[in-house]
């Protein structure tokens, strides 16, 4: 398969994750909790794949999230592209083979994105402690879950590519 093949495969994996997280949130709704997994969707494109593929995938995933969220249209596209850029920036500052580095960068990306979203959706009605308590709880909950699952999710995608003949680890060591 060509290089486009692996990008399509990873894109499909992340699209599946997008729907699975939706299902998880369906169940978490009864507990008044919500898991924002945006950083997990962009993580592999930002850290391990090429520039153009990552850019296109982040944009399309942003469109997916935007079309079902009651936010100004384009918020998620801009957010996902910013997260992707942040991960690209982080590429040279972490060791991508180190699970703690990858987890930390993913959690930090998620944290920044949620803070940005809170500022974008901020209104005068939000000027109370209950609002910020809930936001902080949601940020903490999502960031912790992203930290926990980031490495496993990356490893799963790397193993999937390896089983199909693409050795991401070897490519990274050549760079």
């Amino acid at each position, binding site marked *: 398969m060509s290089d486009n093949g692996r990008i399509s495969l990873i894109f499909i994996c992340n699209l599946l994750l997008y729907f699975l997280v939706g299902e998880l949130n369906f169940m978490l709704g009864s507990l008044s909790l919500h898991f924002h997994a945006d950083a997990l969707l962009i993580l592999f494109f930002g850290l391990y794949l090429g520039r153009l593929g990552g*850019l296109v995938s982040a944009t399309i995933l942003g469109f997916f999230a935007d*079309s*079902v969220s009651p936010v100004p249209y384009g918020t998620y596209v801009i957010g996902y592209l910013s997260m992707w850029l942040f991960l690209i920036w982080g590429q*040279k500052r972490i060791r991508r083979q180190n699970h703690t580095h990858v987890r930390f960068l993913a959690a930090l990306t998620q944290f920044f994105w949620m803070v940005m979203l809170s500022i974008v959706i901020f209104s005068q*009605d*939000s000027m109370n402690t209950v609002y910020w308590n809930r936001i902080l709880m949601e940020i903490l909950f999502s960031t912790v879950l992203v930290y926990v699952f980031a490495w496993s999710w990356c490893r799963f995608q790397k193993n999937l590519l390896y089983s199909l003949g693409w050795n991401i680890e070897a490519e990274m060591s050549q760079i």
Partner: protein
Amino acid sequence: MPRNLTHQAKSLLLVVLLLLLWWFTPSFVKRGTEVIFSEFQAPAWTGMSYLKDLRSYWTNWGSSKEDLISAGMNLSRLNAAYVVRNQQVDSMERELRRLEGYFNLPSYPEYQYEVARVIKRDLTAWWQVLVIRKGINYGIEPGQAVIFSGGVVGRVQSVGAYTSTVELISSPHFRAAGHFESDDRPVEFRGGINPGLRAPTGTVSTVPVDLVASRKDPVRLTSSKLGGIFPDGLTIGWVYNLEPSSDGLFQTGKVMLDPRLQSLREIAVLIPIETRGDPGR
């Protein structure tokens, strides 16, 4: 692209170019992409909800005969009770028509109840919406009222070909007119900011100062037909405490909403039926 730029700088340049392109894109194209992406993923959400239905079907398949017989008996009892209730409703409706005709009153708006399955729940700090498995194909339109056995759920926010998005009454942006059960004066209900792991809440304002609510004697907040969306008298929530507002003219209070709002699986959309020509029919 210049060759001496780093990988990061090239990426940044590409993103800036893409954002500039997005900035100059006409709004109808943006609206088009929104509809395309929304409709594209709708079948996936619908498919997953059908899978959940199938899962519960197979779970019930394994139930014992005793359980099924007992469930059947409970259902037949409920059916008998509903038959009696239907007869009462029919006779009351006939009486209502007779009085409307006698006093030449305009008739109450009538609704068709479109029951739909919930396929997606997005209950975040910023918005609280549900996606249901029916859309334009069942005559659902934005702004229509949505209810369940416990009262008001919310209103339809947007409609797709086969799915619709419902804004819950617990959503921070939700506003509606209401009134208390024992009092016809209108009050304003707003969705609240919901703390996690607890039941949803809202706030009520412009409450007349003579109304009293306490832990021992809570008052029921119901929907009002003033907004033209909801029928009168459906439960919104319960108010346990009222405090004077800052201007001293009214009172405000916290509305405790039904905790089942967060785990709804089936709701009903109220589709208005065209008013009859002859109110005295």
